[in-house]
């Protein structure tokens, strides 16, 4: 029973990270109809930025802020300097360019930081707080939940209650009409990428300290798991991404705990295949075609 509780909490904590990352994937999908396969590599780059800042200043939080800032900048740069120029004649083009970006980012990071695993410290303790003899959440888990919850709430508020959010949604749903209404559609797209990259940066900062360490390929499995989560929830659905993330986190945690952690990548593959074969639209498939 103890083990089950532990795995559940751990799964939810990991799931929260997948939820955040899946949100980033969904954000870009809704705005640009592209799955950003470079999302993981971009997140890793921002964590390296945080690493450097923390090393230089000795402050984790400055590094954290640096990661988010780096995310905003990197997202905007990638959209403006690269993705904008990709021809949309084939959906493959954007995927291939994103993959080129992955290699480029990995290589640059490898040159500047080397390919060794660097352990990263967490700002809070990772030992569980015992409640009634059962080891439950750790302070770090609470931090993760809190951070992801904050992001989800902030994004929800941004999109539903602010003028900028309205513009972003409109630009994504109906770009031409939005331009006629004075919305800077191109700018909203860049903003979307910047936000998504910042959310990805947050997810990276939360998850990397819990894994083997910082390494140019560190987010590969997280990307695949989060992509699976986004697909589970339906690529068009932000609430779906969150629930999908938590679900995937739980499933992988149980598999890792009861079967073995080495099996995790295979479990992700099996889960992804299962969802795509049974309910390709995702659990929350709503509007799949865009109305004009």
């Amino acid at each position: 029973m103890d083990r089950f509780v532990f795995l559940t909490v751990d799964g939810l904590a990991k799931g929260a990270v997948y939820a955040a990352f899946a949100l980033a994937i969904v954000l870009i999908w809704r705005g640009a109809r592209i799955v950003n396969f470079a999302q993981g590599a971009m997140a890793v780059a921002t964590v390296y930025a945080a690493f450097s800042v923390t090393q230089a200043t000795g402050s984790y939080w400055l590094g954290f802020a640096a990661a988010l800032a780096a995310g905003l900048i990197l997202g905007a740069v990638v959209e403006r300097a690269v993705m904008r120029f990709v021809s949309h004649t084939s959906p493959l083009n954007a995927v291939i360019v994103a993959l080129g970006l992955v290699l480029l980012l990995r290589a640059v990071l490898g040159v500047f930081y080397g390919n060794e695993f660097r352990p990263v410290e967490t700002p809070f303790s990772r030992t569980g707080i015992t409640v009634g003899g059962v080891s439950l959440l750790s302070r770090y888990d609470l931090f993760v939940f809190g951070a992801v919850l904050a992001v989800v709430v902030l994004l929800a508020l941004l999109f539903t209650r602010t003028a900028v959010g309205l513009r972003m949604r409109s630009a994504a749903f109906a770009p031409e009409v939005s331009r006629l209404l004075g919305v800077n559609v191109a700018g909203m797209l860049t903003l979307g990428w910047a936000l998504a990259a910042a959310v990805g940066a947050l997810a990276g900062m939360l998850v990397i300290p819990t894994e083997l360490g910082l390494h140019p390929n560190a987010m590969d499995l997280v990307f695949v798991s989060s992509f699976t989560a986004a697909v589970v929830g339906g690529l068009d659905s932000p609430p779906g991404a969150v629930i999908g993330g938590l679900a995937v986190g739980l499933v992988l945690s149980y598999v890792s705990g009861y079967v073995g952690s080495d099996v995790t990548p295979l479990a992700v593959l099996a889960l992804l295949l299962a969802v795509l074969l049974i309910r390709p639209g995702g659990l929350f498939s709503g509007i799949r075609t865009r109305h004009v």
Partner: protein
Amino acid sequence: MTEPILQADQLVAGYGAAPVLHGVDLSVPAATIVAVLGANGAGKTTLLRTLSGLLRPSSGRILLDGADLRDVRVEQMVRRGMAHVPEGRGIVAELTVDENLRLGGVWRRDQRDARLAKDEVYDLFPALAARRRHAGHQLSGGERQMLALGRALIARPRLLLLDEPSLGLAPRITAQIMALLRQLRDETGLAVLLVEQNVRSALSVADQGVVISLGRVVAATDAEQLRGDVGLRHAYLGF
């Protein structure tokens, strides 16, 4: 004579190799409703898209209030007083009625007036007020047209480009919309460039008429004269 609010000279525009518009001249005086008529494929929609900047003309000049619109981006048009309601209405189906209306005014610096304008639109269209929280795709054709029109009005435009507003609407609603256009012209001095397939209803409300055939202007006179010119009507307007 006061300057026309819109002046287009020798517009040549199209998609790809062959142009659709072959040297179109157009003039819209202030506080006037000008109907643009012609058969399907004549270039009416292309004309509106070129005027609002969605399509760049390969040659020709467009003046809005005397200012050359060359190099002005589409997003700037509404700030200069030109609102374009495209073919198919272009309401954003995923957003609510209220959000669609807010969208019409989101560019404005004076948000208080934008909110005021929104209330005025709700007064004008009680049906919309009743359904303000409904999503766009839940509205009927007539309600969508009202929403598109209302959204354009929030920008308090001086020139309104309307592409086939009566498409798919019942005659009663079409008449209401036409009457509304007249009312706006009289009360606010709004100029309207109205593209319509429904020639009768367009000419019933228009002050002037422009007939386009195969990308060229073949007639531009008072609506009165167009209504009376049987030969012209037979040749280009089908009745």
